[in-house]
């Protein structure tokens, strides 16, 4: 029997536990967002909170993302710690003004007279026809604006630790959750703990090329690593975990070692996180030749039909293929002969 501190939790359970423990620990924490209190409980991530903490601390809202974000900012300035839930990251576009012009700036603009400790949870969709407006990973926009922190944990352990850290953080944190990670399990300690922002993880060691996978793309990068191993290429896989602050040191050190850097984002590449990572690493290379590349969403809107969606996202095979071309530029192109769909993804069924 595993000890209680070594039990395994899903990403969903880990998020739920982190929030529940912080609510227990600190009266000022509350959860707010459309349908956070219903029987579906945001895919289970707010499960039971309404029963334990009641409707004053687990609040359903009108469809008013902009005002609710402002309400959270005001409440945060007054000392509360809101966790605002958006069931799609796409909906953050409705509250950009509050996030960019107020949340990010208040502490600075008012020279420290207030702070804005709040978390904006935002979920990224994929597959089953999420389509144009329910699939966007828009974290790059938030990385751009000083004053916001952005984290995108890729496993249950980091999900709990980052959520705990985000709630305790005295700044606005954009918390990026990919739906396909929700069902993944990992050992998660029972006790509350924090995962420090700004520390990347080496998720798999290697010597020939560095793969950086953002959010769900970390999973695809790890699968690509396995495929690459089969053809004798050793890939090091890095999970940045937090995007702002970003641990350039770890990534640059790996890239220096392998001489090749492929950044795969769960987002478009143009002026995105992948551009930032590549540029930041290249700025540090004082003349050392380094081969770099980026992958991400196709430079298109996301199509609904699976026939086209397939081509929209990078996957283990396309990542491995690109990595192979970077490591062995003179070999013929190689595309591993595998289904582009990983088991978690295949297990995910609609409608929602």
């Amino acid at each position: 029997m595993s000890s209680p501190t070594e039990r395994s939790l899903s990403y969903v359970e880990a998020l739920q536990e982190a929030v529940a423990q912080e609510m227990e620990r600190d009266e000022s924490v509350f959860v707010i967002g459309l349908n956070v209190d219903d029987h579906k409980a945001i895919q289970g991530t707010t499960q039971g909170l309404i029963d334990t903490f009641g409707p004053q601390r687990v609040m359903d809202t009108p469809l008013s993302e902009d005002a609710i974000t402002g309400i959270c900012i005001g409440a945060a300035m007054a000392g509360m710690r809101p966790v605002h839930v958006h069931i799609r990251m796409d909906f953050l576009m409705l509250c950009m003004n509050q996030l960019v012009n107020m949340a990010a700036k208040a502490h600075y603009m008012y020279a420290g007279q207030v702070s804005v400790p709040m978390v904006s949870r935002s979920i990224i969709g994929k597959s089953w026809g999420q389509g144009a407006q329910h699939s966007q990973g828009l974290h790059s926009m938030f990385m751009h604006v000083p004053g916001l922190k952005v984290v995108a944990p890729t496993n249950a352990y980091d999900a709990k630790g980052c959520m705990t850290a985000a709630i305790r953080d005295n700044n606005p944190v954009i918390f990026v959750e990919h739906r396909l990670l929700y069902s993944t399990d990992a050992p998660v300690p029972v006790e509350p703990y924090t995962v420090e922002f700004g520390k990347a993880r080496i998720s798999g060691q290697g010597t020939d090329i560095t793969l950086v996978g953002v959010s769900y793309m970390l999973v695809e990068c790890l699968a690509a690593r396995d495929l690459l191993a089969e053809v004798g290429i050793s890939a090091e896989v890095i999970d940045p975990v937090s995007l702002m602050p970003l641990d350039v040191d770890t990534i640059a050190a790996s890239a220096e070692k392998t001489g090749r850097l492929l950044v795969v984002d769960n987002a478009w590449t143009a002026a995105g996180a992948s551009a930032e990572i590549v540029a930041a690493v290249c700025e540090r290379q004082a003349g050392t030749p380094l081969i770099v590349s980026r992958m991400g969403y196709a430079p298109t809107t996301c199509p609904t039909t699976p026939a086209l969606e397939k081509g929209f996202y990078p996957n283990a095979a396309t990542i491995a293929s690109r990595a192979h071309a970077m490591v062995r530029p003179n070999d013929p192109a190689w595309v591993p002969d595998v289904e582009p769909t990983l088991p978690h993804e295949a297990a995910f069924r609609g409608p929602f």
Partner: protein
Amino acid sequence: MLSDLVSNSPFLGEVMSGNIPADPAIIARVYRSLRLIRRTEEEIARIYPSDKIKSPVHLSIGQEAVAVGVCDVLGDDDVMSATYRGHAAYLAKGGDLRQMMAELFGKAGGGAKGKAGSMHLVDMKANVLGMSAVVGTTIPIAAGYAFALGREGQGETERRITACFFGDGATEEGVFSETLNFAALHKLPVLFVCENNGFAIHSPLSNRWATEALCERVATYGIPTHSLDRDDVFTIRETAQKAADEIRHGGGPQFIECKTYRWREHVGPGEDYDDSYRNRADLEPWQARDQIKLTGDMLDAGERQAIDDEIETAIADAIQFAEDSPWPDPEELFNHVFAD
């Protein structure tokens, strides 16, 4: 005569409000539209577990009357805007059934070649504006289209109009208020129609609305409003007819709030009366007034059967069309990012 039938039918008189149209063709047309929508969605629900339709479907089963009552008074060249819960409005406005089904199947024969799916149906040939999965976003766009129609129709006695459907939840978005103000200020030819089914996903009005005085609020913009506390199709039609006429003649926007009820789950093919946020008993009064049954009962049996048969054929044909339609070519991914 149908109107005789009606006045002879105390049962109908009780459950149905509004003037039953004198013209039997209208009744038949309305019935056909209602039934086409209901049956199409029932078929979608039937097919759904096969995983042939891989996109979230938000069925309007139970709510058909709002779309049908309003769209029945629109001309072909009037324009219609709706939401991700848009099958009903799409079909009521005359959107192509084959293309819709192929779109849901994600096939190249879809109205948007599978790029749109259920949530973003579009058919500009029928003046069905593209729908959106982000609640409230289409409201100003519908008004903007009406703005253009208003310009085009300037000086004419009649102008084309836009009908804009949205849910109760959408009225909570700031853009709704902003749009009302602009539309009223510039007397845009737009008919706003709020399908108030009492829920946003599972959230009841009481969690979201400070008061239910929506029509009173809209009226403060100088917009004539019509509050309908049930979704009787002929009341809706009559209301929409009068409103549309006034809008068409330059009177500026009008607003209808119609109470209705979603019979199925928010998204997906099933029911959800065991899911704690509502009870089957809530459904019953709505089902008792099922507009499809009531309008069908006004027709003679033969006529009705003919319509029903025609509908089944059309749906079967559309499904077959969708099945037979090829998948979009992989290259299609890169088309339409930018217009030429």
